[in-house]
């Protein structure tokens, strides 16, 4: 049985600087549910812009984009979509410094109707999955770079999203720590049956994916 598409993009266009910079220049893309996709390309090719479009952090000017059954071009308030369907992992972990590790993982659940006790239970469960349960009450500034990124991964998964979008998740880490993070992402991807879309510069990282997309000048150059 063929899997259904979780992301469907047709002729997606986005410009910056009053049309002078064509960040996305007619993207066509389909990603199936549960797929692990790597997006590669030089700086400024449009790969992060594409990721932002899928995650509804930005809006395109032309084309169609449907993610998890929702037409992002026609939906006005996309915050609920982001909360329910998307989990972001950034290059910089972007944790809130004055909150504990546990509280950082709880943050995405404020927009859901989950009670405090359930929030705590779910966050601890995920921290256990990323091997940081014992550091739940620590401040993120006391953690290493790899540990912080693991917290960010737990935060991305806490609302059980259908898609994880990772923008160079190992970019700020040494190769050994980077491998730990990649293995974690990969195992969570298979365990949670979640679609994983990852932007990376590193070919060996990209090769871990089911499919690699090469983006150049705002277009998908080839797919391998």
């Amino acid at each position, binding site marked *: 049985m063929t899997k259904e598409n979780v992301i469907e993009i047709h002729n997606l266009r986005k410009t910056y600087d009053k049309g002078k910079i064509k960040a996305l220049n007619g993207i066509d893309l389909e990603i199936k549910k549960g797929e692990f996709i790597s997006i590669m390309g030089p700086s400024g090719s449009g790969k992060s812009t594409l990721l932002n479009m899928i995650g509804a*952090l930005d809006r395109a000017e032309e084309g169609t984009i449907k993610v998890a059954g929702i037409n992002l071009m026609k939906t006005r308030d996309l*915050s609920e979509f982001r*909360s329910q369907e998307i989990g*972001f992992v950034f290059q*910089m972990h*972007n944790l809130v410094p*004055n*909150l504990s590790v546990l509280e950082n993982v709880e943050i995405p659940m404020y*927009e859901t109707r989950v009670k405090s006790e359930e929030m705590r239970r779910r966050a601890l469960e995920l921290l256990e999955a990323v091997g940081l349960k014992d550091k739940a009450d620590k401040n993120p500034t006391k953690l290493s770079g790899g540990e912080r990124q693991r917290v960010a991964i737990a935060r991305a998964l806490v609302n059980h999203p259908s898609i994880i979008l990772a923008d160079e998740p190992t970019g700020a880490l040494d190769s050994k720590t980077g491998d730990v993070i990649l293995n974690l992402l990969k195992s969570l991807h298979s365990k949670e049956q979640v679609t994983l879309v990852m932007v990376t510069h590193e070919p060996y990282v990209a090769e871990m994916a089911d499919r690699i997309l090469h983006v150049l000048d705002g277009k998908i150059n080839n797919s391998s």
Partner: protein
Amino acid sequence: MSFFTLMIKNPFRNRTRATLAIIGIAIGIATIVALGMVTGGLQSSTQSTLKAGSAEITVTKIGSGNFGSSGGILDESLVTDLKNTNGVKDTAGILRVNSNVSTPSGGSGFGSMGGFLVNGIDSSKLALVGIDSVNGTIFTNGSSNEIIIGKTVAQNLNKTVGSTIDIYGTEFEVTGIFESGNFIYDTGAFTSLSTLQNLTNNTGKVSYIQVKVNDNANASQVSKTIQDEHPNDLSATTAVDLANRINQSLGMIDTASWAISLLAIVIGGVGVINTMIMSVFERTREIGVLKAVGWKDRRILGMILGESIILTLVAAVVGIILGIVAVEIIFKFFITSQSFEAVLTMDTLLKAFGVALLVGIVGGLYPAYRASRLAPTEALRYE
């Protein structure tokens, strides 16, 4: 962790900045509280003239002011005349003279204005001037030179029961000390009417007459009747009228207090805007992340606005404590003769918290709006 806990934690991330903002607002709140306490104290002193049991109407000679001039200017026979007026329960003639006993320097209030006032009254009529109880005993009517003094006079002159005071060359023994709650009386003394009349050559004369009306009578109506019956001689003022007149003067202090409140709102508001804008700037990336994980614009707006209000409410608590301490210090060390006490009323507290809340909303609204409108991609790129 609840959303509310998060809002409480955030304003104190930069402790120095939060402390400075709190101090700025707290000074404004402290000023409001201090002025409110002084106004409240004066108002409660005024209202105590209305206490139950005391006379409701003060009758003076026309043109002599609310409490009459010193010296005997009314014929004592009027005291009996007025008692026969319809609706009157009791009357008391009072002779008021200045003691010429100077109080220690540095004092202020009625008690220090070149001596205190000595009132002559029949000892059985003391309830009409609000003196229900005396620490010691009351003076006896007739020729004995006995006197009771107000607590403020006792403090200023350092007199106790058994001390003596020289008035017009005659030594009076202090038999009691009273506290009527009326700051005008508490800064004076009472003795036998006939003794004072004889001593000051005012035989058969009084300065003013206190009138108590029947329980079922209307004080304003009785007051009007008295004036109608003595159109050319007497002026009758009810205690309510008097309190209202004093309150009108207090209204000026109140207006000044409101002007300061307004200033506090403007200055505090600008301070809060500055603090919160700095905070939003520093947390731009963080706000981007919150949007990325699905926070709605209105939750971000609520968070920043909530942080701003928490900051100002903390400032309100600090300001109220600061204001109370300041007033206590001023009254303890700089106002030695306390003719009234500062009173912290619920109104003042509500006003302090109301102003703080307003400053929090006014100051937090723009930064909160700005934060809620941040584009997530730009916020996430912010260095």
